């Protein structure tokens, strides 16, 4: 080999080595641990299979307790707050080519994707019409989702920081009875855990999820510390009522109060709170 050939050979090897060095990129991605993952999974299981053993009298007591609880926390606006955030993170997932359905497994014959997807939503505030984004005044929500092995993980979580918004949002008037309902000036500050039970929603009516919240909520400036959990199934809210004799019953309130126990389902009249076993 001539001297010039040797020089060229050295240059060639140097070229390959330089390219290899240039390829040293950032380290491996570490996925964050979802908060209270075990507790959340246990609560979701309770909604699937309530643990309280009930009789007719017990069901009537639960119906009364449920009414009182609903009147106490008054959070029928809360699902729209959750869905508003879920809609945004769904858009972000889809824009990245990721699935919005935790039940969809990773595509075979494709590389495995792990991802942390975050959405920061500035709350819209109490002005009608909505003003310019102003996080300092109206707060915000930071929502996190995880994709592991190409599959969206069911548990998402969010931190709401002094979030102010109208419910329903401006332009989305809801008619209740003969009168338009005045938009509620809602306030949320706390930690929210969402467990998706279906694909993430693109509209409120499509949402199916479990929610656990701990923090401060309020309406028209009156705030209070609360902790609650419920399931939202495409317009129907189910919530958990602990039973003195042990276990939890799952209650939904519509035209009647429906109570699901470990040993059966009960239907109770809203006015009289009399119950009967349901088929």
């Amino acid at each position: 080999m001539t001297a010039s050939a040797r020089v060229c050979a050295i240059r060639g090897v140097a070229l390959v080595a330089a390219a290899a060095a240039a390829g040293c990129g950032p380290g491996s991605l570490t996925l964050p641990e979802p908060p209270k993952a075990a507790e959340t999974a246990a609560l979701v299981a309770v909604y699937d299979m309530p643990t309280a053993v009930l009789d007719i009298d017990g069901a009537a007591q639960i119906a009364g307790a449920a009414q009182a609880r609903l009147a106490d926390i008054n959070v029928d606006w809360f699902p729209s707050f959750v869905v508003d955030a879920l809609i945004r993170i769904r858009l972000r997932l889809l824009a990245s080519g990721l699935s919005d359905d935790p039940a969809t497994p990773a595509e075979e014959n494709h590389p495995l994707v792990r991802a942390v997807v975050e959405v920061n939503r500035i709350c819209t505030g109490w002005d009608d019409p909505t003003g310019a984004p102003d996080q300092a005044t109206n707060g915000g929500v930071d929502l996190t989702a995880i994709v592991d092995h190409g599959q969206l993980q069911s548990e998402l979580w969010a931190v709401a920081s002094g979030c102010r918004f109208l419910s329903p949002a401006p332009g989305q008037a809801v008619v209740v009875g003969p009168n338009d309902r005045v938009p509620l000036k809602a306030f949320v500050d706390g930690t929210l855990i969402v467990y998706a039970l279906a694909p993430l929603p693109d509209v409120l009516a499509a949402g199916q999820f479990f929610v656990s919240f701990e923090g401060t909520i309020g309406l028209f400036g009156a705030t209070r510390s609360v902790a609650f959990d419920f399931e939202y199934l495409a317009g129907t809210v189910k919530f958990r009522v602990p039973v003195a004799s042990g276990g939890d019953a799952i209650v939904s309130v519509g035209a009647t109060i429906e109570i699901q126990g470990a040993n059966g389902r009960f239907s109770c009249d809203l006015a009289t709170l009399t119950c009967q076993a349901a088929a």
Partner: protein
Amino acid sequence: MLLAAASGGRAFAAGGDAETISETGGAQAGSTRPSAEAVPRLDERTALMVGARRLKLGVLFFEYGVTEHVSLGTMPPAWALRAFASIFVPNVNVKFQFVDRDPVWVSAMVAGYYANISEGNTSGHVLFAPVSLFASVQPTRRFYLHGEGTYVFARAFGDGDVTRAQIGGTLVARALQTQLMAELRVLRWLSLTARGRVQVYTSPIRASGSGPLDPFTTGSIDAELSPRIDRPWEIVGGFALLFEHFHLSLGAGYGTYFVPGMDLPLQRRGFVPDGSLSVLFTP
């Protein structure tokens, strides 16, 4: 009848019905520069070159020999991806032969591929550049060994559709690959080939970025793509017809298919087809 000029001290000759390979004298070889025109050679995935001022138009490679030792090219299949996928992959490669000492040849090839994975409000880009070192040796008149080491540099930028960092089920990832190909020249224009390729190292690819979803919302993603198959490999047997103006190679094997040129392994194992067709022009 002598069919070809000397090729690095060796020449292929045909006499009567049968073609033979005859060796010429060293002095004669020394006085005649080895030329790709003299004996058609396997120049894809080897250290051998297409030849000076020769244009090769093929289904896998377009290549032009700027000099005897430098060629520029591009890979048509990557461009053609646009025809059936919403992704456009312009690419270019340069090959430089820096050792041409018959029976040893050593070349380096650097290729660059770019893909835009922007969609909607997100923007993203993937850049990957296989850097290959080829060494070819001809220990006997009829036998060549072609070795290759390739490092695939890959980077994704932005917050676009991360799954499009995979193209047709392949993953654009940093990787180290090696290949060994044995070539038995049965006739002047016919070679039997056997090759094995393995990706000995693969690094997950990272993609991250953030962007607005609407005036009130910002979304961000930090993603990592990992190959489903840890050490993809393939073994392929075949033949090559090597005429002065026409090259055809066909083969079949088993393992993980590596997309030619881009050196991207598919994410499944099975039958591996192999083929290349090209026409060569000399002004």
